[in-house]
């Protein structure tokens, strides 16, 4: 199987992630969209590492996973505190700040 297919897949995943952020109202689901985008990037890294025949890309993927994990920690903390305040995790409910 051609390696390009993996790139196409990662492109699709990235787009799905982006669309999720744009259309889903639940903060957690939107956040999952971001995670999906990060993992699409990971897939790209690993694929290119394979194409170039070296390991750097795979190592980067590990770094990204760690970063994604810390993002989850902080993201959930923020979302939970908002949920406790408002009783809702909808990102459309938080629009007090606007011009």
């Amino acid at each position, binding site marked *: 199987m051609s390696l390009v297919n993996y790139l196409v897949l990662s492109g699709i995943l990235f787009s799905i992630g982006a669309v999720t952020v744009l259309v889903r109202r639940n903060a957690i689901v939107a*956040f999952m969209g971001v995670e999906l*985008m990060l993992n699409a990037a990971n897939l790209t890294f690993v694929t290119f590492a394979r194409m170039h025949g070296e390991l750097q890309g795979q190592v980067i993927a590990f*770094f990204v996973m760690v*970063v994604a994990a810390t993002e989850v920690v902080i993201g959930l*903390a*923020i979302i939970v505190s*908002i949920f406790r*305040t408002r009783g809702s995790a909808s990102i459309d409910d938080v629009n007090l700040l606007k*011009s």
Partner: protein
Amino acid sequence: MTAFVPPEIDWAALTPILIVLGTAVLMVLIEAFVPTRVRRAVQTVLAVVALGGALVAVAWRWGVVQSQGGSELVGGALLEDGPALFTQGVLLLLSFAGVLIIADRYQGEDAFAPTGAAIPGSTYEEEARRAGLVQTEVFPLTMFAVGGMLVFPAAGDLLTMFIALEVLSLPLYLLSGLSRRRRLLSQEASLKYFLLGAFSSAFFLMGMALLYGYSGSIRLSEIAKAVPAMAGMDSLLLAGVVLVIVGLLFKVGAVPFHAWVPDVYQGAPTPITGFMAACTKVAAFGALLRFVYVVTPGLTWDLSAFLWGIAILTMVVGTVLAIVQTDMKRTLAYSSIAHAGFVLLGIIALDVRGISSVLFYLLAYGLATIGAFGLVALVRERDAEGNITGEASHLSQWAGLGRRSPVLSVCFALFLLSFAGIPLTAGFIGKFAVFSAAIAGGAWPLVVIAVLASAAAAFFYVRIIVLMFFTEPATTADGRETTVVAGEGLTTVAVLLCAVGTVLLGVLPSPILDLAASAAKFML
């Protein structure tokens, strides 16, 4: 399989970063082991000493770089050169002032919620407030952010840049949500900042992946080397470059990636707003400067339309929207967007002078920004019973402030004049330097727009000055009025520091301009 070769690490060159990050870790331990009573004092002193020490270390490394030239550290992951050290110096100076403002408190209350996890308005929160709980976690968080900022402009590869981006952003997401008053707005700012920030860092990461695919490396210098060999893969390269730049433009708040700026600046605790408005922008521009100057010189033709469009949009939208704002923090937020547009001129110039002008502008802008937000934090509402409540951030509440506290108003006017670029302030020299660099780089149509935008912008800065000095103070029906609190003097020190710097840089800019020029020479 090639054997893993551990990189040579020049620990001496890492001292500024190590001091800051080491202190941050130490502060986490202090949170755990030092009694509550003395914790705040210990944290404050530690933060101030660490930032001062790191500044000294930067000065020392500056001397080394001047004599021996720049060098690659940790196998090229970090770079030690003129722009990196200059940016780090500016960052440390600004965070020094920022930390002073963060640490300041009035009547025993600082700007942060007593317990960030408590539900706003709950009895638990009220009890925590009465018990005098203090969220001293803001200090380690701030220090971690500063650490990330120091690494950001010095990053030699995209992975380091990405990690630094996250290290500086994640604490800021949290800090934005910790405001003592107007908790709902603060939490909202935090959520927005976090979601959009994560969204943009995903773009950055994808761009990084594409560039890796194109060049087989994430080292900036390697990517630059691969640029001329655009054999059929050029769309990979271009898309990657655009995505990475967009990730960075998000951090500097360039249009159309600016939407978070006004909301977050307004919602976040004001000392944090000042810190992040000044320092994040400095760090992100430092990184953008490096990326654009190292990677894209071979792509000028492809990218010029993109960067010109962004610069024009940023200047125009920032200026126009700043005019229609009614909230002080939002006005300053939009003005900071417009300033991002001005700095972009220096980046677009792609010229040695561009580097030095950007570096100078960032210092000038940072000083005025920290000072201005520091003062915003002091202007409070007082209700009919005489209790001091939240900040009086509505523009109308600033009417007639000049008569009540002339020194504060004069300082604020000074910062506004610096924003507006009036001669004898740092902002004028900065604009002058950036515009002349852009003209030298052939971007004169941009300069014309920039001049018009700054002329229009001057109106709303002057409007605020007119409001402060020549308008009668407004009286509200419920007896609320605007007052200026004194705090413990830390903010005053920081503001005076910024004011003196703003004037000095305006009157005698040559030492710093020379410094910035010699920094530009040592770009790796």
